[in-house]
């Protein structure tokens, strides 16, 4: 039995909300073959968070690292979308974004380490996640992001899927394919930034891919029937595992999510 007390309520709630967020955005990434794009966003979140830490802690500016993380992931996603619109293959477009994001992350790590005594430690918090320390403020932040992301994904799911299925046919029928790509990249970047800030960049890498890939593998036209329960189950069971093994919650979630990915490989080999 997991421990229950008032301090842990926001932690559990944040876990469920993170699961809902991952469950909503992950199918869009998997169905549009943009899992690597999702991973790119995590690099940009890290770059943005480090920039935020530098601005806040070294320059003492009233800047929230979450906002700089969202801004950086939006920039990376727009860069990717624009490169795709200009005819680059998506993997090449993602590579461009990754190189920019990683360069910023490396430079900012150096600058933060040089200018603030505890900045790197804080930045590592974003890398490994601080989900065990989730507060009501984190719950409200996740809920606010969910209110934007879930309606957008479900309202335009049909279009996202169709653009992934047959972009040229969709364009020939008059669908604004470019606008839908931008909308999808925007939604994914907001969700990725929020997930990375609550679960950590490393864990968000996994949790953003597992539910969508499982749903795609299952071949369901309605992936949300699988992605929501899977993502919530992975996160909550990861927390439970972490409690039993006395390891950080992110580690527990990582073990469960990796197990799900391995089972996906087994399914693929068997299928």
């Amino acid at each position, binding site marked *: 039995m997991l421990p229950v007390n008032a301090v842990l309520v926001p932690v559990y709630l944040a876990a469920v909300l993170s699961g809902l967020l991952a469950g909503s955005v992950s199918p869009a990434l998997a169905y549009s073959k943009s899992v690597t794009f999702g991973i790119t966003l995590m690099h940009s979140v890290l770059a943005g968070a480090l920039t935020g830490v530098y601005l806040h802690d070294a320059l003492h500016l009233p800047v929230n690292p979450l906002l700089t993380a969202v801004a950086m992931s939006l920039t990376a996603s727009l860069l990717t979308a624009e490169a795709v619109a200009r005819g680059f293959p998506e993997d090449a477009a993602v590579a461009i974004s990754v190189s920019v994001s990683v360069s910023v992350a490396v430079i900012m790590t150096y600058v933060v380490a040089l200018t603030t005594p505890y900045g790197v430690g804080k930045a590592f918090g974003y890398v490994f996640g601080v989900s065990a320390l989730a507060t009501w403020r984190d719950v409200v932040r996740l809920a606010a992001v969910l209110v934007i992301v879930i309606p957008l994904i479900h309202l335009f799911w*049909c279009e996202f*899927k169709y653009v*992934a*299925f047959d972009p040229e*046919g969709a364009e020939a*029928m*008059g669908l604004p394919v470019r606008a839908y790509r931008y909308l999808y990249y925007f939604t994914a970047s907001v969700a990725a930034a929020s997930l990375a800030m609550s679960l950590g960049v490393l864990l968000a890498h996994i949790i953003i891919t597992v539910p969508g890939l499982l749903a795609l593998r299952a*071949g369901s*036209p309605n*992936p949300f029937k699988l992605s929501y329960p899977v993502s919530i189950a992975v996160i909550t069971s990861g927390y439970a595992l972490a409690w039993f093994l006395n390891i950080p919650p992110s580690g527990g979630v990582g073990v469960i999510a990796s197990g799900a990915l391995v089972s996906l490989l087994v399914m693929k080999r068997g299928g």
Partner: protein
Amino acid sequence: MRWSSELSALSGGNSFVSLSSVHAGYDGEPVLVDITFKLKSPFFAVLMGPNGAGKTTLLRVIIGLLKPIKGDVTVYGVRPWERPEIVKEVIGYVPQLLLVRQDVPVRVEEVVAMGILSRLPPPRRLTRRVREEVSKALSMVGLKGFEGRLFNELSGGQKQRVLIARALIRKPRLLVLDEPCSMLDFKARCEIIKLLQKLHVERGVDILLTAHDISPCLTLEPTVILINRVVYAVGKLRDVLRPETLKLAYPGLTEVEGAIILGEDHVTG
């Protein structure tokens, strides 16, 4: 029921698809040079040429997905780049099956429904009226009862017919098909060609398709446009498919007794 008369009003009653000195390509590099031809409705036309001849590029120009570098294009009197909304109403486009992602699990009814849902604002939902239209379109291509099947579980010929149904649900005046017979076996090719002939004869739909060769199942005599970056010939089948004309567009053409080998693996009898 014929659709062409209903839709001709949309495009002002003009009955030509016309290209005049069109240069088109990507990043300023022309793939097509000085393309000029005119098709008068009703037509069943085959755009024929080897790989890399610019057939798909030409279709993209006609349907308004690619702006020509220079020259003029009109589809029933409308310039695709000036009035894309009208051109998209009168044209039903069937892309190459190769360009459609097979791993995305989409039901047949979802694929076909997008033909009319794309005309509506979001949220685009499968209503009862849309489902009825989908059933009618699927019946037209001989796939009644396939609504709930997954697209990626169908045979190549069935997939092609689903994409044709998606175009037909829009009741187009012109059906533009990019390599509708590629990757299909002989029987499936014949079924597709017979379906297109039926749509042309019974519904009055103009047909423009790209192909490497002419299907022997085609009983109509099509207009053939022979291209390989430039237009080499436009005319009736018997006038265009002559060794001396084909040699121009197919550099690897070889003549053997009773047949012509078109440089790749295409043989015309």
